[in-house]
Protein backbone atom coordinates (compact mmCIF):
# COMPACT_ATOMS: atom_id res chain seq x y z
CA UNK A 1 0.00 0.00 0.00
CA UNK A 2 1.45 3.38 -0.96
CA UNK A 3 1.49 5.99 1.82
CA UNK A 4 1.20 8.67 -0.81
CA UNK A 5 0.47 8.32 -4.48
CA UNK A 6 3.27 8.92 -7.01
CA UNK A 7 3.28 12.44 -8.46
CA UNK A 8 2.92 11.10 -12.01
CA UNK A 9 -0.19 9.12 -11.11
CA UNK A 10 -3.71 10.17 -12.00
CA UNK A 11 -4.40 9.54 -8.30
CA UNK A 12 -7.52 8.03 -6.80
CA UNK A 13 -10.15 7.23 -9.38
CA UNK A 14 -13.72 5.97 -9.22
CA UNK A 15 -15.34 3.95 -11.98
CA UNK A 16 -18.84 4.84 -13.06
CA UNK A 17 -21.51 2.71 -14.69
CA UNK A 18 -23.36 4.17 -17.66
CA UNK A 19 -26.67 2.60 -18.59
CA UNK A 20 -27.88 2.55 -22.19
CA UNK A 21 -31.45 1.89 -23.31
CA UNK A 22 -30.65 2.24 -27.02
CA UNK A 23 -30.84 -1.27 -28.52
CA UNK A 24 -27.50 -2.44 -29.91
CA UNK A 25 -27.64 -4.78 -32.89
CA UNK A 26 -24.70 -7.15 -32.90
CA UNK A 27 -22.79 -8.80 -35.73
CA UNK A 28 -24.35 -12.17 -34.83
CA UNK A 29 -27.80 -10.73 -35.52
CA UNK A 30 -28.98 -10.55 -31.91
CA UNK A 31 -29.86 -7.31 -30.18
CA UNK A 32 -28.94 -6.13 -26.68
CA UNK A 33 -32.00 -4.17 -25.60
CA UNK A 34 -30.26 -2.49 -22.71
CA UNK A 35 -26.71 -2.59 -21.55
CA UNK A 36 -24.20 -1.08 -19.15
CA UNK A 37 -20.64 0.07 -19.67
CA UNK A 38 -18.26 0.68 -16.80
CA UNK A 39 -16.00 3.63 -17.47
CA UNK A 40 -13.12 5.44 -15.84
CA UNK A 41 -11.95 8.86 -16.96
CA UNK A 42 -8.75 10.75 -16.22
CA UNK A 43 -7.92 14.37 -16.97
CA UNK A 44 -10.38 17.05 -18.05
CA UNK A 45 -12.41 17.38 -21.23
CA UNK A 46 -11.69 20.78 -22.76
CA UNK A 47 -14.42 23.21 -23.78
CA UNK A 48 -14.25 22.30 -27.44
CA UNK A 49 -14.26 18.57 -26.56
CA UNK A 50 -11.29 17.95 -28.80
CA UNK A 51 -8.86 16.37 -26.34
CA UNK A 52 -10.52 13.01 -25.66
CA UNK A 53 -8.52 9.78 -25.95
CA UNK A 54 -10.19 6.38 -25.87
CA UNK A 55 -8.26 3.48 -24.33
CA UNK A 56 -9.28 0.05 -25.64
CA UNK A 57 -8.34 -2.92 -23.51
CA UNK A 58 -6.94 -6.31 -24.42
CA UNK A 59 -8.14 -9.85 -23.66
CA UNK A 60 -8.17 -9.77 -19.87
CA UNK A 61 -8.20 -6.00 -19.43
CA UNK A 62 -10.88 -3.69 -18.11
CA UNK A 63 -11.72 -0.07 -17.41
CA UNK A 64 -9.18 0.40 -14.61
CA UNK A 65 -6.24 1.50 -16.74
CA UNK A 66 -4.59 4.07 -14.46
CA UNK A 67 -4.46 5.35 -10.90
CA UNK A 68 -5.69 3.68 -7.72
CA UNK A 69 -9.15 2.83 -6.42
CA UNK A 70 -8.05 3.19 -2.82
CA UNK A 71 -4.95 3.85 -0.77
CA UNK A 72 -4.96 0.13 0.00
CA UNK A 73 -4.44 -0.89 -3.64
CA UNK A 74 -1.27 -2.90 -4.10
CA UNK A 75 -1.00 -1.98 -7.78
CA UNK A 76 -2.28 0.82 -10.03
CA UNK A 77 -4.38 0.28 -13.19
CA UNK A 78 -3.08 -1.99 -15.94
CA UNK A 79 -1.59 0.76 -18.15
CA UNK A 80 -0.51 3.17 -15.46
CA UNK A 81 2.97 3.24 -17.02
CA UNK A 82 1.56 5.05 -20.06
CA UNK A 83 -1.32 7.14 -18.67
CA UNK A 84 -0.83 10.03 -16.25
CA UNK A 85 0.67 13.50 -15.88
CA UNK A 86 3.87 13.65 -17.97
CA UNK A 87 3.41 10.12 -19.30
CA UNK A 88 2.92 9.31 -23.01
CA UNK A 89 -0.86 9.74 -22.72
CA UNK A 90 -0.48 12.90 -20.71
CA UNK A 91 -3.52 13.65 -18.55
CA UNK A 92 -2.37 17.27 -18.26
CA UNK A 93 -3.45 17.54 -21.89
CA UNK A 94 -5.86 14.72 -22.61
CA UNK A 95 -9.22 13.61 -21.29
CA UNK A 96 -8.79 9.85 -21.16
CA UNK A 97 -11.74 7.46 -21.32
CA UNK A 98 -11.15 3.84 -20.43
CA UNK A 99 -13.91 1.26 -20.56
CA UNK A 100 -14.74 -2.32 -19.81
CA UNK A 101 -16.06 -3.84 -23.03
CA UNK A 102 -19.39 -5.58 -23.49
CA UNK A 103 -19.06 -9.23 -22.60
CA UNK A 104 -16.52 -8.37 -19.94
CA UNK A 105 -16.65 -9.39 -16.31
CA UNK A 106 -15.77 -6.17 -14.53
CA UNK A 107 -19.19 -4.54 -14.42
CA UNK A 108 -20.15 -4.00 -18.07
CA UNK A 109 -22.97 -6.16 -19.40
CA UNK A 110 -21.63 -9.64 -20.02
CA UNK A 111 -22.25 -13.35 -19.44
CA UNK A 112 -22.21 -12.96 -15.66
CA UNK A 113 -24.80 -10.14 -15.73
CA UNK A 114 -28.44 -10.93 -14.98
CA UNK A 115 -30.49 -11.32 -18.16
CA UNK A 116 -33.47 -8.96 -17.70
CA UNK A 117 -35.69 -11.44 -19.58
CA UNK A 118 -35.01 -14.36 -17.25
CA UNK A 119 -33.66 -12.87 -14.05
CA UNK A 120 -30.77 -15.36 -14.29
CA UNK A 121 -27.19 -14.67 -15.42
CA UNK A 122 -26.84 -14.75 -19.22
CA UNK A 123 -24.15 -17.39 -19.06
CA UNK A 124 -23.76 -19.15 -22.42
CA UNK A 125 -26.82 -17.27 -23.74
CA UNK A 126 -24.85 -14.05 -23.87
CA UNK A 127 -24.27 -13.34 -27.56
CA UNK A 128 -20.78 -13.73 -29.02
CA UNK A 129 -19.71 -10.12 -29.51
CA UNK A 130 -17.10 -8.96 -31.99
CA UNK A 131 -14.56 -6.15 -32.20
CA UNK A 132 -17.03 -4.39 -34.49
CA UNK A 133 -19.74 -4.67 -31.82
CA UNK A 134 -17.41 -3.18 -29.22
CA UNK A 135 -16.60 -0.27 -31.46
CA UNK A 136 -20.31 0.25 -32.19
CA UNK A 137 -20.97 0.37 -28.44
CA UNK A 138 -18.06 2.76 -27.94
CA UNK A 139 -19.61 5.08 -30.53
CA UNK A 140 -22.80 5.21 -28.46
CA UNK A 141 -20.63 5.95 -25.42
CA UNK A 142 -18.85 8.77 -27.32
CA UNK A 143 -22.24 10.25 -28.21
CA UNK A 144 -23.26 10.11 -24.55
CA UNK A 145 -20.06 11.88 -23.51
CA UNK A 146 -20.51 14.48 -26.25
CA UNK A 147 -17.31 13.48 -28.01
CA UNK A 148 -17.73 13.93 -31.73
CA UNK A 149 -14.18 13.09 -32.69
CA UNK A 150 -11.53 11.40 -30.55
CA UNK A 151 -8.11 13.01 -30.59
CA UNK A 152 -6.91 9.41 -30.59
CA UNK A 153 -8.13 5.87 -30.09
CA UNK A 154 -5.35 3.84 -28.52
CA UNK A 155 -4.92 0.17 -27.75
CA UNK A 156 -2.51 -2.72 -27.47
CA UNK A 157 -3.13 -6.24 -28.78
CA UNK A 158 -6.92 -6.80 -28.94
CA UNK A 159 -7.17 -3.10 -28.00
CA UNK A 160 -5.19 -2.20 -31.13
CA UNK A 161 -7.71 -4.14 -33.19
CA UNK A 162 -10.46 -1.90 -31.81
CA UNK A 163 -8.47 1.21 -32.72
CA UNK A 164 -8.06 -0.21 -36.22
CA UNK A 165 -11.77 -1.04 -36.51
CA UNK A 166 -12.61 2.51 -35.42
CA UNK A 167 -10.49 3.91 -38.24
CA UNK A 168 -12.29 1.78 -40.83
CA UNK A 169 -15.87 1.91 -39.52
CA UNK A 170 -16.00 5.48 -38.23
CA UNK A 171 -13.31 7.33 -40.20
CA UNK A 172 -14.63 10.78 -39.28
CA UNK A 173 -14.74 10.17 -35.58
CA UNK A 174 -11.04 9.95 -34.74
CA UNK A 175 -7.97 11.95 -35.69
CA UNK A 176 -5.40 9.34 -34.74
CA UNK A 177 -5.27 5.60 -34.13
CA UNK A 178 -2.42 4.10 -32.13
CA UNK A 179 -2.17 0.38 -32.81
CA UNK A 180 0.35 -1.35 -30.54
CA UNK A 181 1.51 -5.00 -30.62
CA UNK A 182 -1.47 -5.92 -32.73
CA UNK A 183 -2.34 -7.66 -36.00
CA UNK A 184 -4.85 -7.27 -38.82
CA UNK A 185 -6.01 -10.86 -38.29
CA UNK A 186 -5.10 -13.91 -36.26
CA UNK A 187 -2.97 -16.65 -37.76
CA UNK A 188 -3.87 -20.33 -37.57
CA UNK A 189 -1.35 -20.66 -34.73
CA UNK A 190 -3.01 -17.82 -32.79
CA UNK A 191 -6.42 -19.43 -33.22
CA UNK A 192 -4.97 -22.80 -32.22
CA UNK A 193 -3.77 -21.40 -28.89
CA UNK A 194 -7.20 -19.87 -28.30
CA UNK A 195 -8.81 -23.20 -29.06
CA UNK A 196 -6.64 -24.97 -26.48
CA UNK A 197 -7.68 -22.35 -23.92
CA UNK A 198 -11.37 -22.75 -24.77
CA UNK A 199 -11.20 -26.55 -24.69
CA UNK A 200 -9.55 -26.39 -21.29
CA UNK A 201 -12.51 -24.37 -20.01
CA UNK A 202 -15.36 -26.19 -21.73
CA UNK A 203 -14.05 -29.64 -20.79
CA UNK A 204 -13.85 -28.77 -17.10
CA UNK A 205 -16.62 -30.79 -15.35
CA UNK A 206 -17.49 -27.66 -13.36
CA UNK A 207 -18.23 -25.72 -16.55
CA UNK A 208 -21.78 -27.11 -16.88
CA UNK A 209 -22.17 -25.82 -20.44
CA UNK A 210 -21.49 -22.30 -19.21
CA UNK A 211 -24.16 -22.42 -16.48
CA UNK A 212 -21.75 -22.82 -13.59
CA UNK A 213 -23.30 -19.82 -11.80
CA UNK A 214 -26.46 -21.87 -11.27
CA UNK A 215 -24.40 -24.73 -9.86
CA UNK A 216 -22.64 -22.38 -7.52
CA UNK A 217 -19.23 -23.37 -8.80
CA UNK A 218 -16.51 -22.17 -11.18
CA UNK A 219 -14.54 -24.04 -13.86
CA UNK A 220 -11.37 -23.16 -11.96
CA UNK A 221 -9.14 -25.82 -13.42
CA UNK A 222 -10.12 -25.10 -16.98
CA UNK A 223 -9.70 -21.36 -16.64
CA UNK A 224 -6.40 -21.88 -14.86
CA UNK A 225 -5.09 -24.02 -17.73
CA UNK A 226 -6.37 -21.51 -20.26
CA UNK A 227 -4.53 -18.73 -18.48
CA UNK A 228 -1.36 -20.78 -18.14
CA UNK A 229 -1.14 -21.48 -21.87
CA UNK A 230 -2.12 -17.90 -22.66
CA UNK A 231 0.48 -16.53 -20.31
CA UNK A 232 3.23 -18.51 -22.03
CA UNK A 233 2.32 -16.84 -25.31
CA UNK A 234 2.55 -13.38 -23.71
CA UNK A 235 6.15 -13.88 -22.61
CA UNK A 236 9.24 -14.76 -24.61
CA UNK A 237 11.66 -17.64 -24.29
CA UNK A 238 14.34 -15.14 -23.30
CA UNK A 239 12.27 -13.33 -20.68
CA UNK A 240 11.11 -16.61 -19.09
CA UNK A 241 14.70 -17.80 -19.16
CA UNK A 242 15.87 -14.65 -17.44
CA UNK A 243 13.12 -14.67 -14.86
CA UNK A 244 13.13 -18.37 -13.96
CA UNK A 245 15.83 -20.24 -15.86
CA UNK A 246 15.81 -23.80 -14.60
CA UNK A 247 15.63 -22.68 -11.01
CA UNK A 248 14.08 -25.17 -8.62
CA UNK A 249 11.90 -24.33 -5.64
CA UNK A 250 13.97 -26.71 -3.53
CA UNK A 251 17.56 -27.77 -3.95
CA UNK A 252 17.08 -31.14 -5.64
CA UNK A 253 14.78 -33.07 -7.93
CA UNK A 254 12.01 -34.90 -6.11
CA UNK A 255 11.24 -37.35 -8.89
CA UNK A 256 7.57 -36.46 -8.86
CA UNK A 257 5.13 -34.30 -10.80
CA UNK A 258 4.41 -31.46 -8.44
CA UNK A 259 5.58 -27.94 -9.27
CA UNK A 260 9.34 -28.28 -8.76
CA UNK A 261 10.62 -25.66 -11.18
CA UNK A 262 10.01 -22.01 -10.34
CA UNK A 263 8.38 -21.49 -13.72
CA UNK A 264 5.81 -24.19 -12.94
CA UNK A 265 4.92 -22.67 -9.63
CA UNK A 266 4.69 -19.20 -11.19
CA UNK A 267 2.33 -20.37 -13.92
CA UNK A 268 0.16 -22.24 -11.42
CA UNK A 269 0.00 -19.20 -9.18
CA UNK A 270 -0.92 -16.90 -12.06
CA UNK A 271 -3.49 -19.38 -13.32
CA UNK A 272 -5.08 -19.90 -9.92
CA UNK A 273 -5.32 -16.20 -9.19
CA UNK A 274 -6.85 -15.56 -12.60
CA UNK A 275 -9.37 -18.40 -12.25
CA UNK A 276 -10.76 -16.78 -9.09
CA UNK A 277 -11.04 -13.29 -10.54
CA UNK A 278 -12.04 -13.72 -14.20
CA UNK A 279 -15.21 -15.11 -15.71
CA UNK A 280 -14.79 -18.23 -17.86
CA UNK A 281 -17.60 -17.29 -20.26
CA UNK A 282 -15.97 -13.90 -20.77
CA UNK A 283 -12.68 -15.64 -21.56
CA UNK A 284 -14.42 -17.76 -24.20
CA UNK A 285 -16.05 -14.67 -25.68
CA UNK A 286 -12.91 -12.53 -25.75
CA UNK A 287 -10.86 -15.24 -27.45
CA UNK A 288 -13.61 -15.70 -30.03
CA UNK A 289 -13.66 -11.96 -30.70
CA UNK A 290 -9.93 -12.24 -31.38
CA UNK A 291 -10.44 -15.17 -33.78
CA UNK A 292 -13.17 -13.43 -35.74
CA UNK A 293 -11.37 -10.10 -36.12
CA UNK A 294 -10.54 -9.62 -39.80
CA UNK A 295 -11.39 -6.19 -41.23
CA UNK A 296 -10.42 -7.37 -44.72
CA UNK A 297 -13.15 -10.04 -44.61
CA UNK A 298 -15.70 -7.52 -45.87
CA UNK A 299 -13.47 -6.18 -48.65
CA UNK A 300 -12.76 -9.42 -50.55
CA UNK A 301 -9.88 -10.25 -48.17
CA UNK A 302 -8.12 -7.15 -49.43
CA UNK A 303 -6.68 -5.28 -46.46
CA UNK A 304 -5.66 -2.37 -48.68
CA UNK A 305 -9.30 -1.81 -49.64
CA UNK A 306 -10.30 -1.96 -45.98
CA UNK A 307 -7.63 0.56 -44.99
CA UNK A 308 -8.58 2.86 -47.86
CA UNK A 309 -11.72 3.72 -45.86
CA UNK A 310 -9.63 5.18 -43.03
CA UNK A 311 -8.94 8.89 -42.85
CA UNK A 312 -7.13 9.18 -39.52
CA UNK A 313 -3.41 9.11 -39.03
CA UNK A 314 -1.77 5.99 -37.60
CA UNK A 315 1.05 5.08 -35.29
CA UNK A 316 1.81 1.35 -35.40
CA UNK A 317 4.26 -0.14 -32.91
CA UNK A 318 5.60 -3.68 -32.59
CA UNK A 319 8.07 -5.35 -30.24
CA UNK A 320 11.05 -7.36 -31.42
CA UNK A 321 10.46 -10.42 -29.18
CA UNK A 322 6.67 -10.58 -29.57
CA UNK A 323 5.94 -13.99 -31.08
CA UNK A 324 2.19 -13.83 -30.48
CA UNK A 325 1.70 -10.86 -32.82
CA UNK A 326 5.13 -10.58 -34.42
CA UNK A 327 6.57 -7.41 -35.97
CA UNK A 328 5.87 -9.05 -39.35
CA UNK A 329 2.13 -8.89 -38.55
CA UNK A 330 2.37 -5.18 -37.82
CA UNK A 331 4.39 -4.70 -41.01
CA UNK A 332 1.67 -6.46 -42.98
CA UNK A 333 -0.77 -3.91 -41.60
CA UNK A 334 1.58 -1.00 -42.25
CA UNK A 335 2.17 -2.14 -45.84
CA UNK A 336 -1.57 -2.21 -46.47
CA UNK A 337 -1.80 1.30 -45.02
CA UNK A 338 1.07 2.47 -47.25
CA UNK A 339 -0.63 1.01 -50.33
CA UNK A 340 -3.91 2.66 -49.28
CA UNK A 341 -2.03 5.96 -48.89
CA UNK A 342 -2.89 6.26 -45.20
CA UNK A 343 -0.68 8.52 -43.15
CA UNK A 344 1.21 5.99 -41.07
CA UNK A 345 4.28 5.82 -38.90
CA UNK A 346 5.82 2.57 -37.73
CA UNK A 347 8.51 1.59 -35.27
CA UNK A 348 9.70 -1.79 -34.05
CA UNK A 349 10.74 -1.44 -30.43
CA UNK A 350 13.62 -3.61 -29.21
CA UNK A 351 12.34 -5.32 -26.06
CA UNK A 352 12.88 -8.80 -24.59
CA UNK A 353 9.50 -9.36 -22.91
CA UNK A 354 7.46 -10.80 -25.76
CA UNK A 355 3.87 -9.68 -26.28
CA UNK A 356 3.66 -8.24 -22.75
CA UNK A 357 6.25 -5.62 -23.77
CA UNK A 358 3.40 -3.24 -24.65
CA UNK A 359 2.68 -2.94 -20.92
CA UNK A 360 6.30 -2.43 -19.87
CA UNK A 361 7.98 0.98 -20.19
CA UNK A 362 11.31 1.15 -22.00
CA UNK A 363 13.13 4.35 -22.95
CA UNK A 364 12.48 3.99 -26.67
CA UNK A 365 8.83 2.90 -26.35
CA UNK A 366 8.30 5.86 -24.06
CA UNK A 367 10.12 8.30 -26.37
CA UNK A 368 8.25 7.25 -29.51
CA UNK A 369 4.84 7.12 -27.86
CA UNK A 370 5.40 10.46 -26.08
CA UNK A 371 6.64 12.25 -29.21
CA UNK A 372 3.60 11.11 -31.17
CA UNK A 373 1.04 11.93 -28.48
CA UNK A 374 2.61 15.36 -27.84
CA UNK A 375 2.08 16.17 -31.46
CA UNK A 376 -1.52 14.91 -31.27
CA UNK A 377 -2.06 17.19 -28.26
CA UNK A 378 -0.60 20.13 -30.17
CA UNK A 379 -2.82 19.45 -33.18
CA UNK A 380 -6.10 19.18 -31.29
CA UNK A 381 -5.30 22.14 -29.06
CA UNK A 382 -5.18 20.03 -25.93
Amino acid at each position, binding site marked *: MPDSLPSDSVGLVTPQTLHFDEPLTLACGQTLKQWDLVVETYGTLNDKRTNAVLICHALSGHHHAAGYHSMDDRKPGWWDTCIGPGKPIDTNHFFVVSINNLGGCHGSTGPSTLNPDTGEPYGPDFPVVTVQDWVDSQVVLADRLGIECWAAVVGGSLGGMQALQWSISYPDRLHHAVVIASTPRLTAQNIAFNEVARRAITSDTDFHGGRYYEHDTLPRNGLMLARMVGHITYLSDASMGEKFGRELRDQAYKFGYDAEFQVESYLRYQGERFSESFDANTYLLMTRALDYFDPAYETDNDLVKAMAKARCEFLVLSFSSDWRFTPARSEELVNAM*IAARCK*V*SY*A*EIEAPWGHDAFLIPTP*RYNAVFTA*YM*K*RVAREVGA
Partner: protein
Amino acid sequence: MRADLEIIQQWIGPGSHVLDLGCGDGTLLQYLQQERQTTGFGLEINPDHITECLARGVPVIEQNLDTQGLANFDDDSFDTVLMTQALQAVRRPDVVLDEMMRLGREGIVTFPNFAHWRLRWYLMRRGRMPESETLPHHWYDTPNIHLCTFKDFEALCHQKNFRIRNRTVVDGEHQDRWLSRLWPNFLGQIAIYRITRGD
Protein backbone atom coordinates in the same frame (compact mmCIF):
# COMPACT_ATOMS: atom_id res chain seq x y z
CA MET B 1 16.79 27.98 -45.92
CA ARG B 2 19.33 25.34 -46.84
CA ALA B 3 20.12 25.68 -50.54
CA ASP B 4 19.70 21.96 -51.25
CA LEU B 5 16.17 21.93 -49.79
CA GLU B 6 15.32 24.95 -51.86
CA ILE B 7 16.59 23.26 -55.04
CA ILE B 8 14.82 19.96 -54.33
CA GLN B 9 11.59 21.76 -53.53
CA GLN B 10 11.53 23.31 -57.00
CA TRP B 11 11.58 19.86 -58.59
CA ILE B 12 8.57 18.60 -56.66
CA GLY B 13 5.07 19.29 -57.90
CA PRO B 14 2.38 20.48 -55.45
CA GLY B 15 0.57 17.61 -53.75
CA SER B 16 3.15 15.02 -54.86
CA HIS B 17 3.35 11.65 -53.14
CA VAL B 18 6.94 11.42 -51.95
CA LEU B 19 9.12 8.70 -50.43
CA ASP B 20 12.32 9.79 -48.67
CA LEU B 21 14.88 7.00 -48.23
CA GLY B 22 16.93 7.68 -45.13
CA CYS B 23 14.84 10.70 -44.15
CA GLY B 24 16.90 11.61 -41.07
CA ASP B 25 15.07 13.87 -38.63
CA GLY B 26 12.40 14.67 -41.22
CA THR B 27 13.52 18.25 -42.00
CA LEU B 28 13.19 17.83 -45.76
CA LEU B 29 9.80 16.07 -45.68
CA GLN B 30 8.40 18.61 -43.24
CA TYR B 31 9.61 21.40 -45.51
CA LEU B 32 8.00 19.71 -48.53
CA GLN B 33 4.77 19.11 -46.61
CA GLN B 34 4.61 22.82 -45.79
CA GLU B 35 5.86 24.25 -49.08
CA ARG B 36 4.47 21.72 -51.52
CA GLN B 37 1.64 20.03 -49.57
CA THR B 38 3.25 16.69 -50.27
CA THR B 39 2.09 13.38 -48.83
CA GLY B 40 4.18 10.29 -48.30
CA PHE B 41 6.69 8.78 -45.92
CA GLY B 42 10.24 8.75 -44.78
CA LEU B 43 12.16 5.55 -44.17
CA GLU B 44 14.67 5.62 -41.34
CA ILE B 45 16.49 3.26 -39.00
CA ASN B 46 18.03 5.64 -36.47
CA PRO B 47 15.76 5.56 -33.38
CA ASP B 48 16.42 9.18 -32.40
CA HIS B 49 15.66 10.38 -35.91
CA ILE B 50 12.43 8.37 -35.94
CA THR B 51 11.36 10.05 -32.70
CA GLU B 52 12.18 13.48 -34.17
CA CYS B 53 10.08 12.70 -37.26
CA LEU B 54 7.13 11.71 -35.05
CA ALA B 55 7.47 14.92 -33.07
CA ARG B 56 7.43 16.93 -36.32
CA GLY B 57 4.41 15.11 -37.69
CA VAL B 58 6.35 13.52 -40.53
CA PRO B 59 5.10 9.97 -41.25
CA VAL B 60 8.09 7.69 -40.82
CA ILE B 61 8.50 3.95 -41.28
CA GLU B 62 11.25 2.02 -39.53
CA GLN B 63 12.74 0.06 -42.41
CA ASN B 64 16.28 -0.95 -43.27
CA LEU B 65 17.13 -0.58 -46.97
CA ASP B 66 20.03 -3.03 -46.71
CA THR B 67 18.22 -5.89 -44.99
CA GLN B 68 14.57 -5.32 -45.87
CA GLY B 69 14.80 -3.68 -49.28
CA LEU B 70 11.80 -1.90 -50.76
CA ALA B 71 9.77 -4.87 -51.99
CA ASN B 72 6.81 -3.81 -49.82
CA PHE B 73 6.24 -0.77 -52.05
CA ASP B 74 4.28 -1.10 -55.29
CA ASP B 75 5.53 -0.11 -58.76
CA ASP B 76 4.90 3.54 -59.65
CA SER B 77 3.41 4.25 -56.24
CA PHE B 78 5.20 7.59 -55.73
CA ASP B 79 5.67 10.72 -57.78
CA THR B 80 9.16 11.26 -56.44
CA VAL B 81 11.57 9.08 -54.49
CA LEU B 82 14.25 11.03 -52.63
CA MET B 83 17.56 9.93 -51.22
CA THR B 84 19.74 12.62 -49.72
CA GLN B 85 23.26 11.78 -48.56
CA ALA B 86 22.45 8.09 -48.15
CA LEU B 87 23.42 6.51 -51.49
CA GLN B 88 27.02 6.10 -50.38
CA ALA B 89 25.94 4.40 -47.14
CA VAL B 90 23.79 1.57 -48.53
CA ARG B 91 25.15 -1.88 -49.26
CA ARG B 92 24.07 -1.90 -52.93
CA PRO B 93 23.57 1.61 -54.33
CA ASP B 94 22.85 0.18 -57.80
CA VAL B 95 19.99 -1.97 -56.50
CA VAL B 96 18.56 0.92 -54.49
CA LEU B 97 18.63 3.11 -57.61
CA ASP B 98 16.78 0.42 -59.57
CA GLU B 99 14.18 0.28 -56.81
CA MET B 100 13.85 4.08 -56.72
CA MET B 101 13.10 4.09 -60.43
CA ARG B 102 10.62 1.22 -60.01
CA LEU B 103 8.64 3.00 -57.25
CA GLY B 104 8.78 6.57 -58.46
CA ARG B 105 8.26 8.54 -61.61
CA GLU B 106 11.28 10.60 -60.64
CA GLY B 107 14.22 10.19 -58.34
CA ILE B 108 16.22 12.86 -56.58
CA VAL B 109 19.61 11.81 -55.26
CA THR B 110 22.28 13.78 -53.44
CA PHE B 111 25.71 12.49 -52.44
CA PRO B 112 29.23 13.79 -51.76
CA ASN B 113 31.68 13.91 -54.66
CA PHE B 114 34.79 11.85 -53.97
CA ALA B 115 36.59 13.56 -56.83
CA HIS B 116 36.44 17.01 -55.22
CA TRP B 117 39.85 18.67 -55.55
CA ARG B 118 40.44 18.82 -51.80
CA LEU B 119 39.95 15.08 -51.43
CA ARG B 120 42.24 14.47 -54.41
CA TRP B 121 44.84 16.77 -52.90
CA TYR B 122 44.49 15.10 -49.46
CA LEU B 123 45.09 11.66 -50.97
CA MET B 124 47.94 12.83 -53.17
CA ARG B 125 49.75 14.80 -50.47
CA ARG B 126 49.26 12.44 -47.50
CA GLY B 127 48.64 9.11 -49.18
CA ARG B 128 45.83 8.46 -46.72
CA MET B 129 42.07 8.07 -47.12
CA PRO B 130 40.66 11.59 -47.27
CA GLU B 131 38.73 13.06 -44.38
CA SER B 132 36.84 16.34 -44.65
CA GLU B 133 33.88 18.30 -43.33
CA THR B 134 31.48 16.34 -45.52
CA LEU B 135 33.33 13.05 -44.92
CA PRO B 136 34.43 13.29 -41.30
CA HIS B 137 34.90 9.57 -40.56
CA HIS B 138 37.96 7.31 -40.59
CA TRP B 139 38.19 4.69 -43.33
CA TYR B 140 37.47 1.90 -40.83
CA ASP B 141 34.40 3.32 -39.08
CA THR B 142 32.76 5.28 -41.85
CA PRO B 143 29.13 4.57 -42.73
CA ASN B 144 30.03 5.77 -46.24
CA ILE B 145 31.00 2.43 -47.74
CA HIS B 146 30.33 3.22 -51.41
CA LEU B 147 31.79 6.61 -52.17
CA CYS B 148 31.76 7.66 -55.78
CA THR B 149 32.40 10.63 -58.01
CA PHE B 150 29.91 12.55 -60.12
CA LYS B 151 31.37 10.85 -63.18
CA ASP B 152 30.92 7.42 -61.61
CA PHE B 153 27.29 8.16 -60.82
CA GLU B 154 26.58 9.46 -64.29
CA ALA B 155 28.22 6.40 -65.83
CA LEU B 156 25.98 4.15 -63.73
CA CYS B 157 22.88 6.11 -64.77
CA HIS B 158 23.96 5.79 -68.38
CA GLN B 159 24.50 2.06 -68.00
CA LYS B 160 21.04 1.67 -66.45
CA ASN B 161 19.48 3.87 -69.09
CA PHE B 162 18.31 6.45 -66.52
CA ARG B 163 17.93 9.97 -67.83
CA ILE B 164 19.55 12.79 -65.85
CA ARG B 165 17.01 15.61 -66.02
CA ASN B 166 18.90 18.06 -63.83
CA ARG B 167 22.14 18.28 -61.96
CA THR B 168 23.02 20.99 -59.49
CA VAL B 169 26.32 21.10 -57.67
CA VAL B 170 26.66 22.74 -54.27
CA ASP B 171 29.42 23.12 -51.72
CA GLY B 172 29.62 21.70 -48.20
CA GLU B 173 27.27 24.41 -46.95
CA HIS B 174 24.86 23.49 -49.72
CA GLN B 175 25.53 26.79 -51.52
CA ASP B 176 25.43 26.98 -55.28
CA ARG B 177 28.79 28.44 -56.50
CA TRP B 178 29.48 29.45 -60.07
CA LEU B 179 32.95 27.92 -59.95
CA SER B 180 31.68 24.46 -59.12
CA ARG B 181 29.28 24.69 -62.03
CA LEU B 182 32.25 25.33 -64.28
CA TRP B 183 34.11 22.14 -63.41
CA PRO B 184 31.78 20.08 -61.24
CA ASN B 185 33.68 16.81 -60.91
CA PHE B 186 36.73 18.74 -59.65
CA LEU B 187 35.19 21.66 -57.77
CA GLY B 188 31.78 20.37 -56.65
CA GLN B 189 31.36 18.90 -53.16
CA ILE B 190 27.75 17.70 -53.23
CA ALA B 191 25.61 16.99 -56.26
CA ILE B 192 21.83 16.95 -56.47
CA TYR B 193 20.63 14.81 -59.36
CA ARG B 194 17.11 14.52 -60.70
CA ILE B 195 16.67 11.32 -62.66
CA THR B 196 13.92 9.49 -64.52
CA ARG B 197 13.64 6.23 -66.38
CA GLY B 198 15.16 6.57 -69.85
CA ASP B 199 12.25 5.39 -71.92
